[in-house]
């Protein structure tokens, strides 16, 4: 059985960030396993631009970004196997791999970083009502058909979900001459970037219906009509607000969820981000099992996933070089009022870093609020935010020496 110091699962931006960092830290044998036929993961089907502003200091399309990642990898001669799916990891750190059309192989590792990305919330996951006919698809699937395969599938489309993916697909479909009748959003606000609302909806006269949900889908063998209606603050449909769209396709852009069944099968607990529970080394309940990127929590930018991969790569290198101080005590980091999730989920002591990063998302839109980090009853950090949106991840950097191991850490939006 072939052995590696470090195996990284997934060659998206987080996986590449992790590999390059571990290589830079002197880790000798690194292998990346990628299920697709090229480096970059889902970036390859995201043919719009706007990627890479922080990492490459220019705006790139997804495939360009993937190309740059691939180049960086090639310069360093890090091993990668493509077209290969990992289906299991066992407690002896043995990884089972399906190499498409070739072989089933087992590989062993000293440490592993899971950068397996995310999957899209499906019609089932949002309890979509009505018929289950052809013509209901996720945005990513539509992107794959159009951008990777060149298959058309629609003439008239309703999009559900106004995050950036939904907005970008509205523009993409419009540019192909497909009529996008509207974008329907269950929340009272769009979680997409303002510039995307302008460039993807306003420029194409596509209406955005906020606080609306799908109440029925009709038509067979392919969908023909979709009803949406406005909802009140409790989620109840407001009578008289029904709108019917005659469409052949309902495109769901209703969120991404970390794809972590490999971790779950090993019994690794998950946290509120729906990724594995981690300490501040991106280390799960198994010390040799690290996680980063969308497999940990959903990122707004590919660059952020890359940088997080680097941090996990650095931590895994410390672990491999036996430089990680043994954990003598752990305290939990809890999401308090107004917080959807916070990472890491726990801090191990002694802390060897000078600073400590806390990443969080608020659970609603806030204006003019302070965010407070408490260590027990003691406030160790506070910062004023004119705006907080669930769609924007916030990273706070705290002096590590302020954090004591006495009590839990709680991060909250202050209401006073």
């Amino acid at each position, binding site marked *: 059985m072939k052995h590696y110091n470090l195996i990284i699962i997934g060659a998206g931006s987080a996986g590449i960030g992790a590999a390059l960092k571990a290589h830079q830290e002197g880790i000798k044998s690194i292998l990346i396993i990628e299920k697709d036929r090229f480096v970059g993961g889902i970036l390859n089907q995201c043919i719009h631009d706007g990627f890479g502003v922080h990492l490459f200091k220019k705006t790139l399309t997804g495939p360009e970004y993937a190309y740059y990642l691939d180049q960086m990898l090639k310069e360093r001669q890090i091993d990668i196997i493509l077209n290969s799916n990992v289906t299991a990891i066992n407690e002896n750190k043995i990884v089972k791999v399906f190499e*498409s059309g070739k072989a089933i192989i087992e590989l062993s590792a000293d440490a592993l970083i899971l950068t397996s990305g995310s999957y899209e919330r499906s019609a089932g996951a949002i*309890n979509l009502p009505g018929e289950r006919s052809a013509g209901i698809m996720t945005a990513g699937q539509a992107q794959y058909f159009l951008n990777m395969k060149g298959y058309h599938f629609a003439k008239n489309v309703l999009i559900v979900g106004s995050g950036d993916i939904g907005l970008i697909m509205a523009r993409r479909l419009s540019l192909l001459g497909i009529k996008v009748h509207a974008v329907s959003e269950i929340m009272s606000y769009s979680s997409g970037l303002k510039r995307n609302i302008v460039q993807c909806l306003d420029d194409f006269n596509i209406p955005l219906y906020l606080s609306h949900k799908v109440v029925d889908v009709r038509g067979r*063998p392919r969908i023909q009509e979709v009803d949406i209606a406005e909802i009140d603050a409790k989620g109840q449909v407001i009578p008289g607000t029904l709108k019917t769209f005659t469409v052949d396709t309902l495109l769901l852009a209703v969120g991404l969820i970390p794809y972590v069944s490999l971790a779950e099968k090993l019994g690794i607990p998950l946290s509120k981000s729906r990724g594995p529970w981690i300490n501040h080394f991106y280390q799960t309940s198994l010390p040799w099992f690290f996680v980063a990127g969308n497999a940990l929590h959903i990122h707004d930018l590919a660059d952020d996933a890359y940088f997080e991969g680097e941090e996990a790569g650095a931590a895994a290198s410390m672990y491999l070089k036996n430089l990680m101080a043994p954990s003598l005590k752990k305290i939990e980091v809890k999401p308090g009022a107004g917080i959807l999730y916070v990472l890491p989920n726990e801090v191990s002591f002694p802390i060897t870093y000078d600073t400590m990063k806390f990443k969080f998302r608020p659970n609603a839109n806030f204006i003019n609020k302070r965010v407070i980090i408490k260590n027990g009853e003691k406030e160790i950090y506070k910062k004023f935010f004119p705006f907080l949106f669930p769609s924007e991840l916030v990273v706070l950097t705290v002096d590590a020496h302020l954090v004591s191991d006495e009590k839990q850490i709680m991060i909250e939006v202050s209401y006073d």
Partner: protein
Amino acid sequence: MHDIIIIGAGVIGGLIARELSRFKLDILILEKDNDVANGTTAANSAIVHSGYDPKPGSLKAKFNVLAVPMYKTLCEELDVEFKRIGSLTVAQSIEELPMLKVLEARAKENNVEVKILSKEEVRRLEPNLNDHIEGGLFAPTAGIVNPFELTAHAIENAIENGVKLILNAKVTTIQKSHDSFTVSTTAGTFKSRIIINAAGVYADNIINMVSQADFTITPRKGSYFVIDKLTTPLVNTVVFPLPNVHSKGILVVPTTSGNFLVGPTSEEIMSKEDVGTDYGSLENIKANALKLIGNIPFHKTVRTFSGLRATPSTGDFVIGHDPYVKGLINVAGIESPGLASAPAIAQYVVNDLVASLLSLSPKLDFNPRIRPRVRVKHLSIKNLKALVKENKDYATLVCNCEEVTKAEVIDLLSRPIPIRSVKAIKKRLRAGFGLCQGGFCTPKVVEIMAQYYGIPVSDIAYDEKESYVVKSDETL
């Protein structure tokens, strides 16, 4: 001229066909949809009930109790997932405890083994149940089965033993002459001496084409949640509340594939085609199921669906010779416990009803088994490696969530039942049944099918005929 036409390729039609294929007969199955196991068979709780619940003396009680012991051999022969996990009917208050005694007495009358469990015994069996569950009735012979496999494999076996199957053949008229029937369908006209009506929710409509139904069938909709596989099981047995007059209530049940079903509702509706879901029904399921188990992870829902029970106005299965038209055998009103009863119903229909019309002469070369399917997900790495040496497609994963390989898809396509849709593959192999619900694998499945059949991807249906996934005639 066929000896027998079976209308409907659900679990009833399928098992009858397979039972009939033991004899020297010319048999044709007509199915209106483009796949078998596509109506009520495809959307139910997938339970082999123990049989303690139906009214003693009813056909439901008779066939259910007869069928339960048949399942083991049947599923071995047909390579079908089946697990005898037992069922647990729970009392949700002290006041409900006496009802368990009533059910126990009914079980005795039906000759079904049951045992009343104390609060502590229930807790040991099902640790996730809420604290207010005071006791339960355990029926060890109940089980769960994969109804898609049961039906598809029974029909595959029947075809290999000489039965013919025509899909997309919706019956439009039936004419009876002296000693034969002429059945017109959307796929041509066929003649037979006997018709077996296993048309599910449409069984009364079929009767009325050639005879006169003394009963009606009302579709009764049941909606469900499908919860993803979990690291610790939500339930170990089939968990029911106490039954009421309309149904067995909202239950929580594992599936043979490791998911959990929560449902069903019970709602009489007008349309025999309406399998849509709605928020109200789903909320109703949640509210009721949470009374049994407070921590059901509904955020791990992978899908919701509805199915239609074929509820007869008589309150019991309608199985027998048509009272007015000789040669027409009706197997109608097969609502719960229909799946559980199906093997015994099939034997009765063949050995009693058909035998009274035709002389049955056994085929010496009848083969009760199908070629077992390779299930990569359950193979040891050693066996898997050996397979890959023979066929590299076993190393090509199509569906990550459910671990399905290209070789398994191609094997399925090579089997006797025509595979016409992405959903037909999903039903059998579970590609698309997992977390991502086909988000990643649908394009691959479409391409493998197109390549195998040598047709454009735009000719591949998602589900029904002409429900195309993509339209490549407008390729960019």
